[in-house]
């Protein structure tokens, strides 16, 4: 692994590592770590750093839905144009163009089911290019962004062994 890949692997694992820790773990100088990160951010390769929150543990209701979207294109309108329009809504957390039975898969988050439903029916469905929406509400999450939401496995190793 080259040092840039190593840095990205570490940040993907835990974006809260400090520069000093990243330097230690990747065997790089702190200055070089800062430079690499600045460069990756500048070229748009590193787009952000986010927390993975299990809202259930806080007894907070977060309603999430995956919505399949079908669209029609014409000479003046591309997938990119439609995507730009949809992605601007802050309720939309993820938007991907898919192969298969539908065009876009959109993930939406809100405080209640009525809020999310209202958003889809009032803001998304009326967009002229959108011909169909199929909404799936999330019932439970077991793993997000590579992080499992279970209790984790206990370390059942002997505390001291040869």
């Amino acid at each position, binding site marked *: *692994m080259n040092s840039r890949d190593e840095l990205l692997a*570490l940040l993907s694992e*835990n974006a809260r590592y400090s520069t000093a*820790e990243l330097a*230690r*773990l*990747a*065997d790089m100088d702190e200055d070089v770590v800062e430079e690499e990160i600045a460069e990756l951010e500048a070229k748009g390769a590193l787009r952000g750093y986010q927390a993975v929150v299990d809202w259930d543990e806080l007894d907070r209701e977060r309603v999430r839905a995956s919505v399949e979207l079908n669209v029609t294109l014409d000479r003046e309108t591309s997938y990119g144009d439609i995507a730009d329009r949809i992605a601007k809504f802050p309720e939309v957390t993820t938007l991907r163009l898919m192969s298969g039975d539908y065009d876009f898969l959109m993930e939406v988050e809100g405080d209640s089911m009525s809020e999310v439903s209202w958003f889809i029916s009032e803001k998304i469905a009326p967009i002229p290019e959108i011909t169909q929406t199929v909404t799936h509400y999330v019932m439970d999450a077991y793993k997000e962004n590579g992080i499992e939401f279970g209790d984790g*496995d206990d*370390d059942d*190793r*002997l*505390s*001291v*062994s*040869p």
Partner: protein
Amino acid sequence: MTIELSERARTIPPSGIRRFFELAEQQEDIISLGVGEPDFSAPWSAREAAIASLEAGKTSYTANRGKLELREAIAAHVDDHFDLAYDPDDEILVTTGVSEAVDLALRAIVDPGDTVAVAQPAYISYVPGAIFAGGDPLPVVTRREDEFKLTRDVLEDSGAAGADVLVMNYPNNPTGATMTREELEPVAEFAREHELTVLSDEVYARLSYEHDHTSIATLPGMRERTIVFNGFSKAYAMTGLRLGYAMGPPEVISAMNRIHQYTMLSAPTTPQYAAIEAIESCDDEVAEMREQYNRRRRFVLSRFEELGIDCFPASGAFYAFPESPWDESDAFAEALLEEEGVAVVPGTVFGEAGAGHLRVSYATGLGELREAMRRLESFLSR
């Protein structure tokens, strides 16, 4: 009536690690850097192969030497990775962990009164194994200034020229030392000159971070005088499945197998299925675990440097072997455990050669390592 114990059982001292284990068990909320096994589980496909074998009812004995399919997989694997060529028919024996293999080898080649030189600091089983076989253990004390590598000097100084057997273990538990081909050459030369049989425990071979592992058996004139040990415990995180193997000249493997067939019959069957799968399809997982250990190694070594703790750059296994900040490593380890809840193992557990040092295992998640180092820092600053 009480059963009278044999002299052997009465005189063999208990392992020093036991006492530390008991101390650690008494305490709540400890972070243990005292664990000699991976913190990962075996790769899922290997576990799945074990489960599938049970579902298919594969619960009978295997051949004494282990399943032929496994021995063939091992032969191909060691050829690929370490340039070792052994015939699966008569030069490989599958055992219940490397521990059994070392015991068998010592019993197969040591006569009462034979001298068994053991490079130390060393894993705790070699000396008792030599004693059980009737041999006289001779410590070969490696030195901090040589980064705990075996050198011609220490072999000569310890009187190993008169020994019959030399037991060595690189990458090393407890020091994390490794040896390059160039560094092994004088050791091989010494073994050839003095006609030593070499027992080389290479169970950490996949965990060498600065250079590819070289087996001493690949050096000129060494194959015929070396028994190589390896296993699945460390590289594939399969310690509890207890599976290792020995490779050597046919007559030695055959003698070991004779003892094995009476005492063990065959290594456990289920792990053999896991092991075949491990060799065939788990290289990516091994590489990923290795990468994680390497990161932690760099983290731990650089934290030691920051804290002013002297530690040579350990380059293998998952151990660092810093100098104890107090002269008495036992007292330091006990105080650190009691006051900060961080468990490390005093070097003396691995022979007198380990005095004044601590074995710090980094087979523990980075989060815990960070916290352990923070606690160590606060302990030292008092």
